């Protein structure tokens, strides 16, 4: 681990610049992706990636240069180019960062069980093959795939005021998808993907996430969906399971609270926000049951870390407490620009992209009702599970989401399965209809490696942990098929 650290430090110490501040962020990433599709092993895909980003500040103007050349000369060349660019930008720069504080922290952080070797390639393929083979023989089951991705990341951040931050992380992504088709309709039921998404850790995650032995149940659910009626249209109470809450939190709390969006940076691409800077401390975002945290302290969650990519120490913070909006998702730079407190969420997807405000772990705190009570208190409702479709406007307000699995709820009882469950609402009103929050027994730690944002574009890991939640009187509807 960190075997490049001594050489990197030496090369960093030798760098010369006229900048008032500079930093280096080195990222080394390796990965493997294994899959078995309809009982045939796909060719394994491996990756090795390594590079560094040099960032300088000259007269309050910052610029960066990222390079794959990690030699002493390569790093110096990148630093020189960044410095020259920063000087040229002076007349056109939006920001004057001369007074922005920088971090001098020194710390290490690593994923749980990182010292344990991961299962061998053969063991992984055996496991995937066995799961694939356990899909029942039914001619309506036309496609299935079991996969396992593993990514190791080592990052070293050094800067000219003495910061030295090292992170060693391992991410594991198990997944299973089964597709059923009956001549006119197709239904897919998944496990992993959006309803687990991955965690930090080791081989133990494969069994802990429930992948082993899941195929027969998932196949049965796909077949049930083929036979199920469409979701009826109308207003119902909506019980969202954690694997849909994850998407709901992400799109209609996470993105609108990103401070760089509120400051306008993303207006040309990812969009803006219905939330304004002056709303913090005043806006009742949801019902008083809503408690939302930025939480880097759940070790297995995808975006747990000690410091963000600007070197700011991360700690748990309430963004929304008892429904009241308190704090944005903004890193040190955005906090400096907006003059408000935020969180340590300045993050980059790799060495070749600069840090921007990202979600990291954004969670809903558990309430006090077990699942049976949540269901029992619903007179006319529907349970939805596992996201399959997501669409929301650029201000993150009007949304329409769809799930794989629906079950009607009548008079406090779960009833029949329905297919194509969709719902639509407006963020600014939807969270106020939160009427019940599941207790810790319904709480699941989930996440996704696929959050896209930024110019240049970046796709990054985010974590979302949530209990099951009930929303009153929501517009739900089905599909055409």
């Amino acid at each position, binding site marked *: 681990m960190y075997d490049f650290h001594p050489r990197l430090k030496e090369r960093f110490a030798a760098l010369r610049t006229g900048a008032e501040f500079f930093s280096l962020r080195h990222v080394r990433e390796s990965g493997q992706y294994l899959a078995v599709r309809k009982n045939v092993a796909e060719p394994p895909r491996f990756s090795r*990636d390594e590079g560094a980003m040099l960032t300088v500040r000259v007269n309050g103007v910052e610029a960066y*240069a990222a390079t794959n050349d990690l030699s002493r000369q390569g790093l110096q060349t990148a630093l020189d180019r960044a410095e020259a660019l920063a000087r040229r930008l002076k007349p056109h720069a939006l920001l004057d960062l001369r007074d922005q504080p920088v971090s001098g922290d020194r710390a290490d952080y690593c994923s749980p069980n990182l010292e344990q070797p991961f299962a061998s390639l053969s063991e992984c393929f055996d496991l995937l093959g066995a799961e694939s083979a356990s899909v029942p023989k039914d001619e309506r089951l*036309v496609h299935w795939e079991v996969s396992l991705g593993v990514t190791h990341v080592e990052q070293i951040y050094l800067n000219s005021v003495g910061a030295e931050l090292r992170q060693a992380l391992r991410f594991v992504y198990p997944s299973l998808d089964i*597709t059923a088709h009956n001549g006119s309709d*197709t239904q897919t039921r998944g496990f992993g993907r959006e309803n687990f998404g991955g965690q930090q850790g080791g081989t133990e995650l494969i069994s802990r996430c429930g992948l082993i032995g899941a195929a027969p149940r998932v196949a049965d659910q796909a077949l049930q969906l083929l036979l199920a009626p469409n979701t009826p249209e109308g207003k119902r109470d909506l019980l969202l399971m954690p694997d849909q809450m994850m998407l709901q939190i992400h799109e209609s709390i996470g993105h609108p609270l990103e401070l760089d969006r509120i400051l306008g940076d993303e207006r040309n691409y990812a969009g803006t926000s219905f939330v304004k800077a002056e709303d913090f401390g005043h806006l009742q975002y949801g019902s008083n049951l809503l408690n939302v945290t930025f939480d880097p302290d759940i070790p297995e969650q995808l975006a747990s870390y000690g410091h963000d990519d600007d070197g700011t120490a991360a700690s748990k913070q309430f963004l929304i407490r008892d429904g009241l909006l308190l704090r944005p998702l903004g890193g040190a730079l955005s906090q400096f620009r907006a003059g408000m407190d935020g969180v340590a969420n300045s993050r980059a997807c790799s060495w070749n992209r600069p840090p921007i405000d990202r979600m990291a772990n954004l969670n809903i705190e558990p309430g006090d009702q077990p699942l049976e009570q949540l269901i029992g208190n619903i007179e006319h409702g529907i349970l939805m599970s596992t996201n399959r479709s997501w669409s929301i406007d650029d201000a993150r307000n009007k949304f329409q989401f769809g799930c794989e699995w629906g079950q009607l709820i009548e008079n406090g009882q779960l009833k029949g399965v329905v297919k194509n469950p969709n719902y639509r609402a407006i963020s600014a009103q939807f969270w106020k209809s939160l009427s019940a929050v599941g207790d810790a027994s319904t709480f699941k730690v989930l996440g996704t490696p696929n959050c896209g944002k930024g110019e240049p574009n970046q796709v990054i890991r985010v974590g979302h942990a949530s209990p099951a939640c009930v929303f009153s009187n929501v517009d739900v509807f089905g599909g055409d098929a």
Partner: protein
Amino acid sequence: MSSPTTQAESFKTLVNHLRAAIRKPEQFTLGYAAESSAFVRFNHAKVRQAGEVQQASISLKLINDGRHADLHITLAGDPEVDLQRLTEGLQQLRDTLPLLPPDPYLLLNLTGWQSDNVQAHPLPDTEQVIGEIARAAEGLDLVGFYAAGPVSRGFASSSGAFGWHQANSFNFDFSLFHENGQAVKASYAGHDWSSEGFARRFEQAREQLAFLGRPLRTLPPGQYRAYLAPAALEEIMGMLCWGGFSAQAIASKSSPLQKLYGGDLAFSPLVSLDEKVSGSLSPAFSEEGYPRSDLGLIVEGKAGAQLVGSRSAAEYGLTANGADGGEAPSALNMLAGALPDAEILKQLGTGLYISNLWYLNFSDQPAARLTGMTRFATFWVEHGEIQAPVSTMRFDDSAFSLLGSQLEALTEERECLLSASTYSQRATASALLPGALVSRLTLTL
């Protein structure tokens, strides 16, 4: 940054090294991707964030005894280090292959095809571009992103195939915001930056901005006549390309165009869609090492060719036609229609003029039913005259309706839309599309 010529030489050095290192009966394919990019973000007509990125990587596939595995390696740009990484990578794959079962769907292209396409138009100086943008945007709320530089792609195989593609390009993707929060989106992209060309494009966007100052119209959900500008139609086509033409998706019944390929449904006869590689920005060879040729995907509303990668070809008994692993189009070309641009508003009469759509997804994929949002410069038109900008609305409708029974006309003029995507690397995809006049678009929220 190393020059494209140097990059081509570096790639050839790696290929020669690999050819010498291979032990018969081993085979290999080697892909190459490199770019040097200037990235400049603008907010409030000022530079928010700027930098340069230099990156290069190879994708090595080793094949032996019917088994194969892939390794993607970032290069360092130092010949000695890169040869060492390639050597270590080759050994990693050699150690892996005996652990794998033979792959029944392995299909190699054994022809020794050659392809060479180098476009080296000089790129503008970044400082000059920033200056021109700053001057044009004076007094305006501009937000946008400029990306420019050379992009290289290479391919070689142990069968003697060799392809090289290199192109300089720039893409300035921007929006102009009115103080009421409404915005118009535009882009200026290509190979040759022309100050006059940029000024013209910018002026067009500025003219549209004037309409956005009118009082906002809020529409109730319902069905409306609508004109979808090429950029809006591109979003719909993008959804259909998400597995729509993929041979594997069609075979596994998960294509949104399942009913088209099954012959159950058709688009309007006005709709003809090609994957037209020739003349596009994307390489003439696939990452798998197959030369790409032009394909008719939809012919007068009916299903045409599928995009077939090598694994699909082997698995489903088809012929590989140069599709990459994802089997998605990257050079869309839709046949023009007969509606002159000058007639668009008149033919629309009363309804919506939609410049852009945003964040589409399927509400019922087997039915090709889509939902998404209006975004940027959507106007309410009455009797052929723009009346007011329209507040953001959600639509939910079937592609078979929008491009089928409800499609009235396609425009005579088409727009070439170059992808501004920069996920991992700068995209080379493009789309040449007309606008579409539809008699019914369903708005739901």
